[in-house]
């Protein structure tokens, strides 16, 4: 009997919170808030906050054309796999004190899982056979490489700080990081973590492929690159994935640097998480979007491997010497 209840509970985690339903609603709302804020900052009225939902449902109602040159199975499956991987990432990231599946993964796993949605998109695009997708794939991969170094440095800095504090030397487990923050307050209050947090904020638009780091999906030059041949529902799923990725990265930020703010009541925590995510989205994605123009791919690479990596490296060095 308990097994059944456990199974139902886990199914609830996967399907409702913090899984599929939460990802869908919160991610789409974040996306809507982002669009609205960018519009506001550009002195526009902007779309309604629910616009991403409209877009998604509209796309679901459209015809899906599979080009004759495409490899059909990969083309149709990769959006679903990408979305599933994102939902799973969301399941690993603790919501303050609460973790749905703490015993499965850690920050290295998150680091790799973040590659999976991008990889799904790359393979889907490659399977479509479009030359635009080829260019998009190349750029997407370079963006991933660009973001990897600073992200690794940030995560290692966090691992060292928490590990040093709890006495195990290093700590890769997200639930331990969350626990540590429950007891000792948010990591962002530490001086050594400030550069890392700044680096992470700068990383979020790169990882999500938002403006100005959206060279991979530049709709005006390479017809949205990897997505050039997608239409209808699979495209909608990719758009949804993009929204969920925003949620994942912002809630990863919350989990790494703003833990310990939770109230202990799950429903309140969920709302708090969403509000914090929205705040981070506003600061890191919308704000940067509003006043920058798209960077060239080699500029993206240079930027991440110099400025952002330096910030993260400073943080790691500070953490290393126990500041």
């Amino acid at each position, binding site marked *: 009997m308990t097994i059944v209840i456990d199974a139902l509970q886990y*199914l609830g985690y996967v399907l409702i919170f913090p899984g599929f339903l939460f990802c869908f609603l919160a991610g789409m709302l974040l996306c809507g808030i982002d669009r609205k804020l960018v519009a506001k900052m550009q002195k526009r009225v902007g779309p309604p906050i629910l616009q991403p939902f409209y877009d998604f449902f509209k796309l679901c109602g*459209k*015809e*899906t*054309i*599979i080009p*004759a*040159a495409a*490899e*059909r*199975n*990969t083309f149709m499956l990769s959006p*679903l796999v990408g*979305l*599933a991987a994102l939902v*799973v990432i969301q*399941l690993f990231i603790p919501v303050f004190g609460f973790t749905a*599946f703490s015993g*499965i*993964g*850690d*920050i*290295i*796993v998150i680091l*790799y899982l973040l*590659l999976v949605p991008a*990889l799904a998109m*790359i393979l889907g695009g*490659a399977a479509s*056979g*479009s*030359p635009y997708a*080829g*260019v998009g*794939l*190349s750029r997407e*991969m*370079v963006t*991933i*490489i*660009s973001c*990897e170094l600073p992200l*690794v440095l940030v995560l*290692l800095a966090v*691992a060292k700080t928490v590990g*040093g504090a709890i006495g195990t*030397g*290093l*700590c*890769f487990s997200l639930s331990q990081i969350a626990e540590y923050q429950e007891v000792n307050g948010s990591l962002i209050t530490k001086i050594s973590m400030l550069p890392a947090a700044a680096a992470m904020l700068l990383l979020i638009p790169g990882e999500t492929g938002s403006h100005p780091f959206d060279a991979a999906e530049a709709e005006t030059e390479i017809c949205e690159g990897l997505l050039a041949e997608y239409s*209808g*529902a699979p495209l909608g799923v990719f758009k949804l994935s993009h929204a969920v990725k925003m949620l994942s990265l912002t809630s990863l930020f919350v989990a790494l640097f703003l833990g310990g703010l939770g109230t202990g009541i799950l429903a309140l925590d969920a709302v708090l998480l969403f509000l914090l995510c929205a705040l981070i989205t506003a600061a890191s994605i919308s704000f940067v979007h509003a006043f920058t123009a798209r960077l060239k*791919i*080699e500029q*993206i*690479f*240079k930027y991440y*491997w110099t400025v952002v990596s330096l910030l993260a490296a400073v943080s*790691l060095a500070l953490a*290393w010497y126990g500041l």
Partner: protein
Amino acid sequence: MNMLGNILSYQHFPIYAIMALFLGSFLIAAFGEKRSVRNILALLSVTAALGFILALMKPVVFHGEIISYWMGAREPAGGYAIGIALEVDALSFFFALLVAVAVFVSGVYSIQYMNRDDNEKEYYTLYLLLCGGVMGMVLSGDLFNMFIMVEILTFAAVALTAFRNTVRGAVEAAFKYLVVGCMGSTCILVGTAILYAQTHTLNLAQLAQLAPGDVNTATRLAFALLFVGFGTKAFIVPFHPLAADAHGAAPASVSVIISGVLTKSGIYGIIRICYFLFQSMGLGAMQFLLVFIGSLSMFVCVTMALAQHDFKRLLAFHSISQIGYVLTAVGLCTALGVSAGLYHAINHTLFKGLLFLAAGAVLHETGTTDLNKLGGLAKKMPHTTALFMVGAFSISGVPPFNGFASKWMIYQASYQKAVESGNIGFLLVTIIALITSVLTLASFVKVSHSVFFGQLPPELANVKEVSWGMRSAMGIFALLCIITGLFPNLVTAYLTEPAAAAVFNVKNYIEAMGFDGSAAVQLEAGGFQHAGVWDPVSWLLVLCIALLAITIVAVAGKYGNVSRCRAPAVENKYQLFYGGEEQEFSQLGGEDLFWGFKHNWRGYFKFMHRLHSGVVNDYALWAVVDLALVTLFSLIVL
């Protein structure tokens, strides 16, 4: 009856495993005129070798026994080992198992892969000779015997590299391999001779007993020679260009052995000399040497791979890069590190074997491995593509495949080492390893786009899927990749941890052969605790549930009013969008991918390009310089 029981005793299995391969080789040379005879003989011998090695699992792994076997029952007399010995501890068994599995799968693959070549008889003779050489080397308990086996495998490998001598560059590659390989072999021979002069024995266990107690300039020189010699066999930097040329020319089934197994025998040799013969891994400088060379191999070769546009050359560079991981992890000298390194060694054999076989399948069907000439094969070779993707995901460390599990352990091992020793250099290793991993992913994205996805070039319109025999060989590797990825606990518990324990228990190794092991340096292995958690089965379950849920929602919401082209003629609607132009063949070449990255690193790539001149004299010079540097290092620092 007793006699039969004696013959079938597992004590004899190591020599049976070696002999099965050599015997197969000789029999094929003698009677292999007919194809069926040849195939049966080859299959029999690889299967027998696999069977004998698997049968050793129970005594060696479960009972923790170390099999010591004196050829001709010539036990040591007067305290000195005279006879030739085989000694199989968990480490030897571990490598022997890798060899047996790779040899078996590659043998199965060869039968249909080689059917378009002439001289199949010679191929099998050399192939089994190569396999037997590797098997003999990892099971040997005698340093000189190891040298003999190294010579056998080197010459077989050289001959097999030049086997397809109609292929451009094959003979040249073989020549390069011959020159530098012989330099390596000579190093091993001279090192062995020096050690023999110093300790009057060639038995590994006895050397391990005597050598560390008597460290002088001569043994230091011997160490440098042996290290460089085995380094040549592992193709670690600066010997990596040889591997690229050799793999580019050799048949894929041979590449599997060279990359998956032969390089491992080099690693095995390095472990034996560093951990056992000299027992010097406790020294920081020694760890530095291994980790430095490992990290260098890892990083240099992955960037070299990114610049390649030939499928097999790219794989060759990756195999050195992965060997770099193994060497780095082994060089960390912690229980977790060695375990992680050995785990990665298994994984590397499996996924690199799979990838080479996939490359072979592509070559077999299309006749080329040039990334700029291929494309869109996923529609023609769906199974090969799926199997290749398993290998590509594994090598790039995408969870839940096996590459991830071992890399995860390597990151933790190196970072833990950094934290514990307070040495920021090891931290750098963690970062390099992580970056290398993502660059690996990048180059496999390149391969999958340029070979399997993208557009089908018009001249490849008649390509067919490869035969079931080749597919099933790839399938075995893919299955093993998934199993070792999904059950890392089983792999570590039954394969890598016993082997790692053997590495840290030199005393047992010495005493099993009847020598006095009391003086052996006991390294503090220490238990280990994972700093994080990784549970692939649960992960997969969660992913499946999520995928299922999404699929159900998608199906309920009519995932796409799908319309696709059914007529042979492609209507406008189903053509690719070319800015309105009519669809034509257009594929982004493998060289042109990742421009932004290469542009920023153009100085580095230019430098690398100048360095890899392709001239054998240069490579020989590198070998000499490397030897000089390692000698200096070992004389001054160690």
